[in-house]
């Protein structure tokens, strides 16, 4: 018991100091996760809407691919991006391996199927009446999609939250393509791995608490948006 007590005390003490280094790590975590979520949502929500509404050829295999992608191990996404960005690899000339850009890329790869899969479920779950009315409007595909997303808004908001939760909490992809370089690519999750490995349990727990607070604030904002739209 005293062991856990000591770790907790140290964590609280470190949090109360909150220095420039910790601020940098927190800021990078926020920027990388939000960018990856934005890319994931920008590509995944339209894809999911098409999958939820459409009756087109190749829909079923695409749906299977998306659902499988939702379970892709982050470290595998990291490996794929690592191989693409390696200096001798196909995108090696970009020179962005072990930079935040590579981390955003790898996390986007994780966010897209989550955003698409949850959106497809939400849009596909609209009532048959709503769908009939939608097609009776005779609008173009884009306009129809927009209305469907608005109709299914609570579910689409859940897709955004799920994509953010996926990327902010994963460590495998960002460690593999980021390298946990201090002041450049160190984010909360990779810092937790490092502190734990070095038996700095208090520091590791402090970072973990910070990560949970960050997730709580972002999800709080998303939930507020989700509920506000529903009651309006």
């Amino acid at each position, binding site marked *: 018991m005293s062991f856990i007590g000591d770790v907790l005390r140290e964590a609280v003490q470190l949090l109360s100091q909150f220095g420039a280094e910790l601020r940098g790590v927190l800021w990078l975590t926020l920027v990388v996760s939000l960018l990856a979520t934005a890319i994931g949502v920008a590509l995944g929500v339209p894809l999911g809407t098409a999958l939820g509404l459409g009756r087109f050829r190749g829909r079923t295999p695409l749906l299977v691919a998306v659902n499988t992608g939702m379970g892709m191990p982050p470290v595998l996404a990291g490996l794929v991006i690592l191989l693409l960005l*390696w*200096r001798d690899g196909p995108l090696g000339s970009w020179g962005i*391996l*072990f930079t935040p850009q590579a981390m955003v890329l790898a996390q986007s790869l994780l966010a897209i199927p989550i955003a698409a899969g949850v959106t497809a479920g939400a849009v596909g779950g609209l009532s048959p009446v709503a769908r009939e009315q939608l097609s009776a409007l005779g609008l173009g595909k884009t306009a129809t999609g927009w209305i469907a997303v608005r109709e299914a808004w609570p579910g689409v908001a859940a897709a955004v939250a799920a994509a953010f939760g996926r990327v902010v909490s994963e460590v495998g992809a960002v*460690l593999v393509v980021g*390298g*946990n*370089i*201090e*002041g*450049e690519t*160190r984010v909360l999750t990779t*810092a937790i791995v*490092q502190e734990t*490995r*070095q*038996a700095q349990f208090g520091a590791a727990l402090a970072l973990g608490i910070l990560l949970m607070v960050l997730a709580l604030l972002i999800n709080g904002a998303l939930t507020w948006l989700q509920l506000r739209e529903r009651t309006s």
Partner: protein
Amino acid sequence: MKRIGLIAAIAALVLSACATPVRVIVAAGTTLVDSDILDGLVALYETDHPDVDLSVVGESTAQVLELGRRGGADLLITHAPDLEADFVAEGLAASYEPVLASRFVLAGPAGTGPGIPSTVVDALREIARRGDLFVSRSDGSGTHRKELELWSLAGVDPAGLPWYLETGQGMGLTLQVADQRQAFVLSELGAFLAAAPFLSLEIVPLRDDPVLVNPYQIIVVKGSPAESGAAAFAAWLRSAGGRAAIISANRDLFGEVVYQPAGS
């Protein structure tokens, strides 16, 4: 009732499968794991001793010793003599002996060899003067401690300087970062050779220097759950048979002897 019987039968099966061999947790520096040298020796020992199950965990030396303190490992193989001295002084070691020795190397982008002076300390001074990128483990490992010792001999304090990148990770990942960022890095030789086929980094030619010798010590943790199994494996590594196995594992992996056996 039938289902409970089935669950009990499965549980008994799983338990009996787990209970037979003695599980010895071996915590070792990441260099020994990343270079694959330990894997081969463990496999060989387990073939001859089916009653022993050696589980190898690769961590920085600082964390390996911490695992020993917290009862998380039975056998420790480390390479930071000053940290090990503290562990021994705390009365936690049942035995503490040399087991292997390799070398540290300075590696850097291909073609940077000429222009680099011939001692490691001068080479580090030159890197610092030019502001060339340097990637550091910064993880409390034996390699990291050696690097800090060398910087201090060079009279350079690189902490926080823009050309000094700290990964806080193991040898393998740190080598990848150094390679892709075209940076210099201090590495243990075996881990470097294991990664070398995928790296464009080259070893910087340096004058032979005793400061670059990298001795590994083996510690049996006093009072650990598998203390006798740990002691038996440690004794084998230092025996004539163990030494011969170390030499042949070296030849298989590297075609040369990188890890000199240190037993008597």
